[in-house]
């Protein structure tokens, strides 16, 4: 059976540093997979390689059986891979609605002519864009809708910015969403809520999710599978329980017991 996302021997090198080396990994339709690992393990580089922001040195990335290597980021997005960023990167001066509307760019067609003539097709498309945007924002309850729609994105609180980023990714109509630390900086209540939402992203919206996360409770609660990276090398894969008891993983996070050195 073919996987939704398949990564074969992926290697990314920056100068002499191997940010990722020999990563083999796959994601099936409808899975939630977490990528964990200590700082500098290459998790974000892994996301960047998939979404086309950095170039892979070796290896292959297949999405639905087709290679995405060498594609521009916007082409990857239109194939159906959306992402969020670790250090929330919204379009701060655009309204919340506009933020989510603009991310449907690759799913829509209208150009100059339609806008100037206000053709039926243009108005129809604008309406649909808006409806889809409001649907994506509505996923987070009342926080991002109502008067908020016309507010500039920079006015949002930290947690809401993270939510808006997810809404923006949802609006690109992807099959696979890459979430880069979705709950970083959130308080326990918000974290618990978002954990639930990530589950609903799969069950209600049918997205497959790959998530980088440091909060182990979130990882435990939502992921079907966990991949552990360390120094660009995958050191363990499997269910949360398997991985969390794996001695290599513990070593990567906590270091080796003293008596074993020498």
């Amino acid at each position, binding site marked *: 059976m073919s996987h939704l996302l398949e990564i074969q021997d992926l290697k990314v090198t920056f100068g002499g540093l191997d940010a990722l080396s020999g990563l083999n990994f796959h994601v099936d339709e409808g899975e939630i997979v977490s990528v964990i690992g200590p700082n500098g393990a290459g998790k974000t580089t892994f996301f960047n390689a998939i*979404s*086309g*922001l950095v170039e892979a040195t070796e290896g292959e990335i297949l999405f639905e059986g087709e290679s995405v290597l060498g594609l*521009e*980021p*916007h082409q990857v*997005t*239109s194939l159906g891979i*959306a*992402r969020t*960023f670790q250090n929330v*990167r*919204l*379009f*701060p*001066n*655009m*309204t919340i609605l*506009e933020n989510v*509307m*603009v*991310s*449907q*760019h*690759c*799913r*829509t067609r*209208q*150009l*100059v002519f*339609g*806008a*100037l003539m*206000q053709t039926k097709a*243009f108005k129809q*498309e*604008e309406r649909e*864009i808006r409806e889809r945007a409001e649907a994506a924002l509505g996923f987070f309850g009342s926080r991002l809708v109502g*008067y908020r729609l016309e*507010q*500039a994105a*920079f*006015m*949002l*609180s930290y947690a*809401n910015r993270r939510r808006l980023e997810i809404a*923006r990714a949802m609006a*690109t109509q992807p099959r696979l969403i890459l979430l880069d630390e979705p709950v970083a900086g959130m308080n326990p209540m918000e974290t618990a809520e978002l954990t639930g939402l990530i589950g609903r992203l799969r069950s209600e919206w049918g997205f497959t999710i790959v998530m980088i996360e440091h909060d182990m409770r979130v990882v435990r609660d939502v992921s079907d599978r966990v991949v552990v990276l360390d120094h660009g090398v995958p050191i363990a894969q499997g269910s949360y329980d398997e991985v969390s008891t794996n001695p290599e993983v513990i070593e990567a996070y906590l270091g080796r017991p003293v008596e074993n050195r020498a």
Partner: protein
Amino acid sequence: MSTTMSAPSSTSSAAPALLDQDWRRIGKWGGLCAVAIVLVSLIGMPVGLDRRTIIEGRLSLGYMALIWIPLLFGYVVSKRVVLEGVKTPDPGARDVFAGLCAGVLSGLGPVLLILGIDNFNLRKPLVNWGPPLLEQLTFGRGIGFGVAAWFGICAVLGLLGSLMHVLPKDVRRVVSFVTYGLLSISILEAVISDLSEGFGLESLADAMYAKRGGLTVKSSIILVVVIGVFSIVTKGRLKGATSRYQELQGEERKRASIVLFSGVAGLCIVLPLFLGKIVNELLANVGLFLLLALGLNIVVGLAGILDLGYVAFFAVGGYTTAVLTSAESPFFTPELHFGFALIIVVLMAGLTGLVIGAPVIRMRGDYLAIVTLGFGEIIRLLFMSDWLKPYFGGAQGITNVPPVDLGFAVVTGIDPRSVFYLVLVFCTLAIYVSWRLQASRLGRAWMAIREDEQVAEAMGINTVNAKLMAFVVGAMMAAVSGAVLAAKVGSVFPNSFMILVSIIILVVVIVGGMGNIAGVLVGSFVLIGVLGGPRQPGLLQEFQSYKLLIYGALLVFMMLQRPEGLVPSARRSQELHQEEFLQDAWLKGVDLDREEPEAVEQPGAASGVEGEGAPA
């Protein structure tokens, strides 16, 4: 200004408190003020601008160039740093005394200059160091009088400047209304006398303005009273009207906008009929630059591509028109009609946009700015080169570009009114295009690219294509402006397309308010209309030689004090004053993230107050 004199008597407090001053601050601002006065004098402003009178026999633009300085510094030196949540003592005699001290100190500037000019000869390095300046500074009444007078004047002006803080808000409003009103009526002299002539009211203009220019003393007193009364009557209503307009939603807003728009359109169509040649010429120039600025606003304001070589497209438009329509273009004389030529011009501009844009837009930030700057010059040098002389006429350019024959009317440079109407049509079109594009898929993509190019790319926007589109649309607007310019002037020369044009349009867009159509409109009227374009005189023709200095100073001032421009788009101003806003909100205990929609409006209101309070 006379109204400010009556208030100070009520402010008297303990004498020792008066001397408890931040002397260092006073010294700093007073000294700076003195330096500024000397600098402005030596640049030659007082003498050069003296021909233009503001109030007959009392005040000329030359003296005006000097006296606003102590006034402003007096205001600044006594300005308190207001911290939200920390109690600031009410401004009082102490602040006024600070203004007075700074004023006296700044008087040292002109006084030392007078004594210096009298005793030393520095004519060689400093062109303006000489008798005319001395004569001007001493009011033609001798050294002693000059020295005493400047100390007195500066002291009074510093005092007046600082008094602005003490006066109650209502009085302050009247004072600033009167000052601004009187100045604008004086600056708009040409327009007003033209208009009153057009309406057959010559007597009104004759009564208001003296024969050799400037308001008469009598009429200025009447105007002070009229404007004063007007400001009291309209108190709170202007602001109320604008905020009511902004609060309108949906259909009502639409209706109000249509009324507003048709009002402005009606004025634009009717007014020029009553205006004379000079003012119409001026309006035509404003229109040409407005068209350019609207195009640049799409490139810089929306898509965030800092294009410093924008004049290239202006040149392409002008030259294409000249080649296609002129009987004297060196190698190819199809002598097309302007209308057909215009279609080709637009296509050519689009093509040039693609050709220049394709290599350039792969760069970012500073690199892009420098490369576009280069391309702007390359295009001009190509048109000027001997190599292409057989095609474009080299430095002699192409002459004999025919006027535009519309069938029912002929648009020529001799009749600036017709040019204005032609430009008006194109400007309206350009405004429509900008407005519609802004609220479309493409416009949103441009904004996203401006905000964060990498993320825009990751969100599925083909940034290369979108940026090229911005370049092409902007290029087309510039080219149309160039085409009209060629037909208006009747010839094109490489030197009409200097890099300076790019810079000035950029300043217009920045000062007006980036990414905002209304801002660009205001910017071009204020800058091109009042100060003038790179080669075109404005209402203040006397500023001709100081124009670039003033543009520069204005740009620096705006960047420091009001980076969002004269007419900011609401969101941009929110962002630029975000920190103040957030701090205010925090201190007031407003939870930004909960149900506080009204908190959103505060930064706009705050910056409004700030703008009003400044005196000069």
